[in-house]
């Protein structure tokens, strides 16, 4: 009725605000706020404004459930998060509690997900690992060592990376599990580098990386390419800072999707409007941003805010076929005209496969002496698919 505004719709966000992984909450909250800003600036969803509320899971599975219940007190229509450490302890809650979840994080155990209310807007680590292998081989680096810490995230890289690297004709000389927080990694490094590998693959937390890079410098092992995962991709980030003098030639970082193009520019504009021009664009923020836009589009298409109804439209607004659109108001306008759309988001095409995973390409970044990044190479989804096909032929 005239004069009364429809009640706002709640977005629930679940991140680790405390504990060892607290930095992830900075990423998550920035992405969510930017997404909500974008949707509200364009008039909201079906006349509803979006609001958001947070809960802290401390990256601890035993804390995740109370955090989830806290969020449910606000009757959210969908959730963003949590990251990999706690997703498994809440994933079974989504359907019975009638809420849709958009997760960001590489956990490869969910590559074959069948949960209808769960979607992942970042590419799985298994894709990233394949891309890292492809990138190395395409440069002719055929012997490698792997240095991955013991976290679930990092260990998720190991099997797909090994399989892909071998399928492409490379040899893994040594695969070391790094135990974070040690005071030195000299002995680990000396045994790993015994056979003078051409390239190094690595993933670990930044504090551990600082120690390990420092030791590797001492031992003279920084004179060859090191290929890190997306954690290492930020400009002036801790990894690049710790890498040492050879950072300009020898450090590479993989980064999912294509933070470039129209969708990404829209995101950057919204992000700057929300936080000011100077704010760091934290990793994964475009994934959370995309999650919110996609959910809002699905609700618009279904003309319902009931998750049971609109969840079926998530893949419809994001996947082909359809008219490509790269920002929320533009997409909404098309939907109003009953045009089938294919949202091209900040993170890339955002096409979900049948397991509700996106399958993006990867770019590889190098660093200049000011520690700013530049793109060195791009591995397309097609190249990844071909590599995976080779693996199964070999296996």
């Amino acid at each position: 009725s005239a004069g009364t505004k429809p009640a706002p719709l709640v977005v629930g966000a679940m991140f680790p605000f405390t504990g060892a992984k607290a930095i992830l909450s900075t990423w998550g909250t920035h992405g969510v706020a930017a997404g909500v800003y974008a949707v509200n600036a364009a008039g909201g969803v079906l006349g509803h404004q979006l609001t958001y509320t947070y809960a802290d899971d401390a990256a601890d599975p035993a804390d995740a459930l109370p955090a989830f219940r806290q969020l449910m007190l606000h009757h959210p229509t969908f959730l963003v998060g949590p990251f990999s450490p706690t997703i498994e302890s809440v994933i079974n809650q989504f359907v019975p509690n009638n809420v849709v979840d958009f997760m960001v994080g590489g956990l490869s155990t969910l590559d074959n997900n069948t949960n209808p209310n769960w979607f992942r807007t970042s590419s799985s680590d298994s894709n990233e690992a394949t891309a890292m292998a492809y990138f190395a081989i395409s440069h002719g680096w055929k012997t490698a060592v792997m240095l991955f810490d013991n976290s679930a995230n990092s260990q998720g890289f190991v099997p797909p990376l090994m399989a892909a690297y071998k399928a492409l004709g490379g040899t893994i000389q040594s695969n070391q599990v790094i135990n974070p927080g040690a005071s030195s990694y000299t002995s680990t490094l000396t045994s790993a580098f015994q056979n003078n590998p051409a390239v190094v693959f690595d993933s670990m937390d930044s504090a551990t990386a600082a120690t390990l890079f420092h030791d590797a410098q001492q031992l003279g092992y920084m004179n060859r390419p090191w290929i890190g995962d997306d954690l290492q991709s930020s400009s002036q980030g801790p990894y690049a800072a710790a890498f040492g003098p050879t950072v300009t030639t020898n450090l590479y970082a993989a980064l999912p999707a294509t933070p470039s193009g129209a969708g990404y520019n829209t995101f950057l504009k919204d992000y700057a409007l929300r936080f000011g021009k100077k704010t760091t664009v934290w990793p994964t923020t475009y994934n959370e941003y995309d999650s919110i836009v996609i959910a809002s589009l699905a609700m618009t298409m279904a003309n319902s805010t009931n998750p049971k109804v609109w969840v079926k439209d998530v893949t419809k607004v994001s996947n082909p076929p359809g008219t490509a659109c790269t920002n929320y108001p533009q997409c909404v306008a098309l939907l109003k005209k009953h045009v089938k759309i294919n949202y091209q988001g900040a993170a890339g095409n955002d096409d979900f496969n049948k397991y509700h995973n996106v399958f993006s390409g990867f770019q590889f970044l190098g660093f200049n002496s000011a520690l700013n990044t530049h793109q060195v190479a791009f591995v397309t989804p097609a190249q990844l698919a071909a590599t995976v096909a080779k693996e199964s032929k070999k296996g």
Partner: protein
Amino acid sequence: MSAFFLFFMTMVFYVIVFWIASLGLDLVWSRTGIPLFAYYLYVAVGAYLTGLFSLPHVPLQNGVGNLFGFNLPGLLALPLAAVVTGLFAMFVGAVFMRRLRTDYLAVVMVAVALVIWDFSQNDITLVSGNTGLTNIPLPLAGVLHININQWTYLYTGVAFVWALALWWIMKTVSNSPTGRVFRAIRDDSVVAATIGKNVYRYQILSMGIGGFYAAIAGGFLAQLATSWNPSSWAPFEVFNVFTMVIVGGVGSNLGMLVGAALLQVLFIQGPTYVASNYLHSPTFETLAAAAIGVLMWLSLWFRPQGAVPERLKSTAWYLGREPALQETINPDLTVEERA
């Protein structure tokens, strides 16, 4: 409304679980005098075993899997895991209680917990390292065809029944002559040995019971979250349980309930809720965690006996009535007042 009830029930569930956990620690630490800083290890072992017993065997693939799995019904997996954990705790006790003096034991216990925690993170063949166990089945949910929300209510009830039974058992044990031997060992284990008590055996027994209680708590946590991995049990979380015991009142079975409720509601879940809903800053939560330390200091200083103090067992308690015996005044033993 139902969202609120589910939230409330989850809180109740946590309070019950930590009541059970602190009952076990209270027996081992306050009543037997063993500084069991490795207590969370048993919580974890219980959780892992509950998962492994109720999960099917998943062969290791892409770094995920579990070395064995028995597909047992969850209601059975839990007590079975607790029994096995109890035996494990007895084994750990048997190895370490034999020779170590108390302060070494305290440190060594932490070291044992840390080593095994490290192992659980590094080793991917047994329980998938940091990925841990996932999809632990909900007991009964499949049988009764109820959804996870109804199950939450039901299982809170199940946990409560368990807790009542465990409370009664602990009460019976601590009031029994066996409980008295435990306290004698706490006060002076050398004396306990000279009066003919097999100190080592009783210490191991106490560890076993403590391990059983810890495992029940851990099993419930794993079943509620349907998953368990090394970040669920940073060994130092045991400090919270110690604080529950101190705040509740060492040696007091009902005190443990008070301690668990106080800590869970006011110092753990409460601040998390306030921080994310009203203050929008994790600082408050972090300060609340720091405040747990302060709470323990204040409690120890101003009310060392805890919220519900342990009661001394009087003569009347033992006899079931006031003693009939009248003290014979021994004339040799009275003070003769002189002018």
